[in-house]
């Protein structure tokens, strides 16, 4: 057992840190710190900066534009990235459909899509969930019927993040039904400008619009947009979901948020004292910090197992479960730290239209928005209950 990173890795860490410090746009960081989602133009511009640096796709093979980093370097990069406070780059192209295309796509598909993903020219969205199928994804019922050189697609997708900004959607559709649910699913790419695609906003708990319903009404999609084989879509979807897990514990993001919480507690007054001097509040911070230390150690331990060539199974679910619980605990305690001002809440569009000063202390804004948004952390990507079912199966074996 050995704690140290190599001298080369430490130099790399320093390089990443310096680059982020010098290049992360202040406006992007400020919105992120306020618990607000990035504006489309801001995040695209930032992703182009990262692309120019060659760091936009650490998980892609070098031949397709990836970095060729070791697992350790990827870990170091992710860690520094989130410790900088930067908002996550948008996953749909870079971490979701991109790897599916370079792994299972035709040469034509690779040529058509990959470069635009790397350059953030195309905005993708994910058409997996449906009203009737939440964690039970395979029960989806959107139907694609072959008609000449196209599929005609009918159905409804839901929880489609940023669909209103998207150019393309990767989508699971049912192409066969007299079989096990998993066996009749295909993976297809849909141009969001196609006739019959309608996007309707879903306003979230935070009163912000990131989610959508997408209605597909006789949408014609060329057969060359099918990924891999018809009816094998479940395989590609599982591959995609498996790729989601790197950084799933969100340790560095939580460390960043925890540092913010401590800052707030260090300036919030409580009569003649400061909140940070309140022993029981301090204990609550301490407990979360300890949980986070354990999570970090666990993540590193699993990383070490991956480096040693072992495949992780239930471990990913464990990281997801605890990561989500811990970020929720941090965000909830941050709202608590605001005291009576915790009641105040401005969603993004009110914030942008405000012409007097911000409400209360500067640090107020963002805590509640992100608290509300993070309520979903234990729900999306398979609820914590489903994750526990998965772990239960694994440990019973």
């Amino acid at each position, binding site marked *: 057992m050995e704690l140290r990173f190599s001298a080369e890795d430490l130099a790399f860490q320093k390089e990443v840190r310096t680059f982020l410090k010098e290049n992360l746009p202040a406006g992007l960081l400020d919105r992120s710190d306020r618990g607000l989602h990035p504006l489309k133009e801001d995040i695209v511009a930032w992703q182009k900066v990262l692309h120019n640096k060659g760091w936009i796709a650490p998980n892609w093979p070098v031949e397709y534009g990836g970095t060729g980093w070791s697992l350790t370097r990827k870990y170091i990069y992710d860690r520094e990235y989130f410790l900088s406070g930067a908002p996550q780059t948008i996953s749909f192209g870079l971490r979701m459909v991109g790897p599916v295309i370079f792994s299972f796509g035709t040469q034509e598909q690779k040529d058509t899509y990959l470069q635009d993903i790397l350059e953030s020219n195309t905005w993708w969205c994910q058409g997996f969930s449906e009203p009737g199928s939440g964690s039970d994804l395979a029960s989806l019922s959107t139907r694609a019927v072959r008609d000449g050189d196209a599929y005609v697609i009918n159905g409804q997708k839901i929880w489609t993040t940023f669909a209103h900004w998207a150019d393309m959607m990767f989508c699971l559709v049912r192409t066969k039904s007299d079989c096990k649910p998993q066996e009749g699913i295909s993976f297809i790419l849909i141009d969001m400008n196609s006739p019959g695609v309608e996007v309707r906003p879903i306003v979230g708990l935070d009163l912000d619009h990131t989610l959508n319903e997408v209605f597909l009404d006789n949408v014609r999609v060329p057969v060359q947009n099918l990924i891999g084989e018809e009816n094998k879509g479940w395989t590609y979807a599982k591959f995609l979901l498996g790729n989601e897990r790197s950084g799933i514990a969100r340790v560095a993001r939580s460390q960043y948020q925890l540092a913010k919480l401590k800052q707030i507690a260090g300036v919030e*007054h409580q009569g003649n004292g400061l909140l940070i001097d*309140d022993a029981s509040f301090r204990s609550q911070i301490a407990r979360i910090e300890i949980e986070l230390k354990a999570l970090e150690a666990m993540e590193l331990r699993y990383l070490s197992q991956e480096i040693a060539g072992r495949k992780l199974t239930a471990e990913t679910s464990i990281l997801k479960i605890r990561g989500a619980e811990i970020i929720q605990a941090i965000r*909830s305690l941050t709202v608590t730290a605001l005291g009576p001002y915790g009641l105040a809440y401005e969603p993004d569009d009110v914030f942008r239209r405000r012409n007097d000063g911000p409400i209360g202390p500067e640090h107020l804004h963002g805590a509640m928005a992100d608290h509300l948004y993070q309520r979903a952390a234990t729900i999306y990507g398979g609820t914590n209950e489903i994750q526990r079912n998965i772990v239960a199966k694994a440990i019973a074996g």
Partner: protein
Amino acid sequence: MDFELSQEQIMLRDSVVRFVQDHYDFAQRKALAQTVLGHSDENWKIFAEMGWLALPFAEENGGLGGQAVDVAVLTEALGSGITLEPLFSSALLGGRMVETLGSDTQKSAIIPSVLAGETKLALAYSEPNARFVLTYVETTAERSGEGFVLNGRKSVVLQAASADRIIVVARTSGGVADAKGLSAFVVDAEASGLRRQDYPTVDGQRASDLWLENTPGELLGAEGCAAPALNAVIDAATCAVCAEAVGVMQAVLDITKEYVSTRKQYGRAIGDNQVVQHRLVDMSIALEEAKAITEMTAMQLDEGVPDISAQISAMKVKVGDAARFVGGQGLQLHGGIGMTDEYPVGHYYKRLMAIEAMFGDTNHHLNHFASAI
């Protein structure tokens, strides 16, 4: 020892339930919350006509002489609709401060109009540096001619934007943290030197920060006597808001039970999962505990039990914990749909969050309770 509702209390509860059914379906509430005012003056008339505003006031002041247990029946029932009208700020806070502290002249000048719903009050007591310490007051009041002028800043004043008069707690003597030296003042909403910053609260209500610069105010009752009155009024309001939380939690539990019994995943209702069933059990237990300790506290308030503040804190901690758990798990069991503005459970959750931060949060009251053991 009797936790049963009287006939009058049952009638009161049923009248509120009918009001919520008729005027507070979810779409109506959502629309109301988005208006500038944030509530409905037509509903407010009903509050007055039904006597709900008069409930907590003494009969000699035109009230119905209701006790803490009666107010709890009212607010618990209103909780199922998460109503938006300023019952707390106008009646239970501002109005009760006037009743507790005011001279006979002041009482007869203000209270009848409050009970009739014609005048709305707000109570400005908290300040940015005070957190939940009631007696930490930096705002000052100084004699000026026949009256007083006030200087300072008040924070998170509930429903100040719609108030006609604001009861402001200010310091007439003593250091910033002294309980002695606090006085209350009636300040007109249009008074000179009063600036407001209005904002929505997470639960769809309204609050304001106030800046007072040589703002004239009328002393409420005698000078230097506000602290005990403020304590008593906040204690009673805390009990009332805990009862509201009980009503809100009951609603969360009801819709969550309904949801898990109809939502299917993996070929069966999610409510068929034992883990979901036990979660609902723990939510029910939390609710039962919250309800019991709230009713117990209301009875102790009515009984005049001495040193009630530890019991108030115990109630607020228990209700705060329950609210966090029941609200959070209500969201969790709804999955994605619960995360939308379109579905009621999130709105209940937000009200529970707001209640946790009102009148001292769980940490504040746990510390207070612990200091007394």
